[in-house]
């Protein structure tokens, strides 16, 4: 059995109970039928067997996942986990929700199926997440109440914030204090926006100036290092980058993977398969197929012409872009296909946020080096010079040394 993990972003419905300005999804009143869940599960398990993969992460989201109700999830989890166990496999479930319809009725399923945690989203300031009635202000008020209720019930909550012009105007300090002090969160992450899906006039307003965005992110990074890093605040993706630059195992976000095509797919309520939720909800030209209509997911992924573009993308980028000469190629690989496609109309180019990423990586490298120096100094060792051979050797002789095991061992 391999050590690989396969992930599925599973959308049990495209319906949603809120009306956010920048949502790229096509909202349809369609839900994944409980009757089809065993078939979906079988297809996924067949694929895991074909690929000799033991573990599959299921990221439940929508639309709005909680529309399905807690008992639907309890049944779904039981069906999937029982089928997986019979075949020596394992599903690990994660829930991403807007929390708006959270109630204590969810507590059992969140504890049992999702290991007592969930992910949700909120921006600062919240200008674009809106209820159908009451707008952004009412959304913030209701969401905040739900957040506190969930936390009071012992649920661990992680929050994703999408940056927008208002965030940049507020500045890193107010942004950081909102999440850590006003909401009392110790686990949140920042995402860059992109104009996905059918063109909408409002999305023009989400294009951010790269220099301003980079400046904001670097400021936020430094603030987090100064105040949050040592005290246990997890701020993604900065925490993963610091792990990387301090020679710890790091799980970088999907936008910086060597090639996302072999690591996850997304499946919507109708069985449509595409690269990720952004593609499955927005770009029919890039659908890989339908998991209910095609009997073999492995074969579908192998033969899909649309998927070939994803496989070829990193290769193309090192051939035609300047990625090969970039210091940070090993942690970026040209960035995110959908961010590129939504901005440029092709995925065969590097991520438009390239300069933003470089600024963040440089900041992470510098902060990581400082952390290593402090660690070395505390251990009574001399401080390595910037970029010195010692720094290089300390890294090489750390746990990242390759493990080349003889076949016959």
């Amino acid at each position, binding site marked *: *059995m*391999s*050590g*690989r993990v396969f992930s599925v972003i599973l959308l049990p419905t495209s319906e949603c109970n809120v009306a956010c300005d920048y949502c790229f999804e096509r909202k349809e009143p369609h839900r994944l039928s409980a009757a089809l869940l065993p078939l979906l599960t079988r297809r996924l398990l067949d694929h895991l067997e074909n*690929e*000799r993969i033991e573990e599959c992460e299921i990221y439940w989201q929508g639309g709005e996942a909680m529309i399905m109700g807690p008992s639907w999830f309890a049944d779904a989890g039981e069906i999937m986990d029982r089928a997986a166990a019979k075949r020596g496999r394992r599903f690990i479930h994660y829930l991403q929700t807007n929390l708006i319809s959270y109630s204590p009725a969810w507590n059992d399923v969140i504890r049992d199926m999702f290991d007592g945690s969930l992910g949700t989203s909120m921006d600062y300031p919240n200008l674009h997440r809106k209820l159908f009635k009451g707008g952004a202000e009412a959304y913030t008020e209701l969401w905040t109440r739900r957040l506190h209720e969930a936390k009071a019930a012992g649920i661990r909550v992680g929050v994703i914030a999408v940056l927008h012009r208002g965030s940049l105007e507020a500045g890193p300090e107010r942004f950081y204090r909102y999440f850590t002090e006003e909401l009392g969160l110790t686990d949140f992450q920042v995402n860059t926006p992109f104009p996905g899906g059918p063109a909408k006039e409002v999305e023009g307003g989400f294009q951010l100036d790269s220099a301003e965005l980079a400046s904001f992110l670097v400021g936020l990074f430094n603030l987090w290092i100064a105040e949050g890093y040592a005290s246990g605040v997890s701020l993604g993706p900065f925490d993963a980058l610091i792990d990387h*630059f301090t020679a710890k195992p790091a799980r970088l976000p999907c936008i910086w993977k*060597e*090639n996302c095509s*072999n690591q996850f797919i997304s499946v919507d309520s109708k069985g449509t398969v595409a690269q990720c939720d952004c593609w499955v909800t927005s770009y029919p030209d890039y659908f890989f197929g339908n998991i209910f209509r095609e009997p073999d997911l492995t074969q579908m992924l*192998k033969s899909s012409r649309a998927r070939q573009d994803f*496989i070829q993308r*990193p*290769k*193309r980028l*090192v*051939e035609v872009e300047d990625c*090969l*000469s970039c*210091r*940070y*190629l*090993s*942690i970026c*690989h040209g960035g995110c296909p959908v961010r590129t496609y939504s901005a440029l109309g092709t995925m065969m180019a590097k991520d438009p946020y390239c300069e933003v990423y470089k600024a963040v990586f440089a900041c992470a*490298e510098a902060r990581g*080096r400082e952390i290593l120096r402090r660690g070395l100094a505390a*251990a*009574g*060792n*001399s401080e*390595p*010079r910037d*970029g*010195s*051979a*010692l*720094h*290089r*050797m*300390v*890294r*090489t*002789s750390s746990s*990242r*040394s*390759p*493990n*080349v*095991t*003889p*076949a*016959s*061992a």
Partner: protein
Amino acid sequence: MTRCTSQPVAILPSALAEGPGVEAFVAVVRSRDELYRWLRDPAPGLQWLQVEGMLGDSDIWTEAAHGESGVPLDVVLSDPALEFSDLYRLVDACAVRSIRVTIRVAPGFLKAAKLAAALRLPIRILPGQPTTQELAELNELLELYLHQPMVEAPVEFFHSLLATMFGADSGSLWTILEEDPAEFPHYDPSGRARLPRSGVFDSTGTSFRGFVENHLKSLVEQGAECASCPWQRSCAAYFKWPDPTYSCEGVKRLFCKVKEAADEIGRDLASRADAKTSIPNLTGSDTR
């Protein structure tokens, strides 16, 4: 790659490796069938597979990513400037087995070395007798290896050479690069041992045993620059083969750079007399 024996490791074409009696060997595979055969059923004594001419075949890398046997792979790039972007095909297989990339130095090889390093793949550079252009690329790669913290995996021969300068017993470049015919005899399809980078064969199977020593001794006796070379022990006239008249001026600068880096590390480590930690273990990739 790490071998699990003190015996010589025979580098054999796949078909020859099927035969009995080889205690430790590397099977050279050049087709899907050969690769799949060894992945499915690795024979005792198999140290790793040397995969040649198949980097562009996506199907085999899908199969290699299944990884039941865990056989390590040494993927050889013969035309690195052309093949380099195909290294992305190895990503999944790397998650389930050890993979090293061997790059024969040729103009443009640096692109492959850079991408392999970005994918955190251990690298073996086979320098041969590098031209001026190739030396420039070797210098750039050495600079990246020594000073770019983003390069994490070992780059041979730089890595073991640096370790040697800290007292590690990595042997000469012939051993580091697995080209010493006494330790790594390479065989052709008819079963004849062949000297590396040459068409010289040994039908008896014994005359190559002292090849490196004899080669160096002969050059020293002839007054070649090896006689007074400060890197004689580490190099053992590696760069004087097959052409004994090759000028080592450029490669000596590589050795000097490695030595400067070793000195810098030594100074850094010695700069605090009460250092509580010992010198890092630099022998990770080639420890036997």
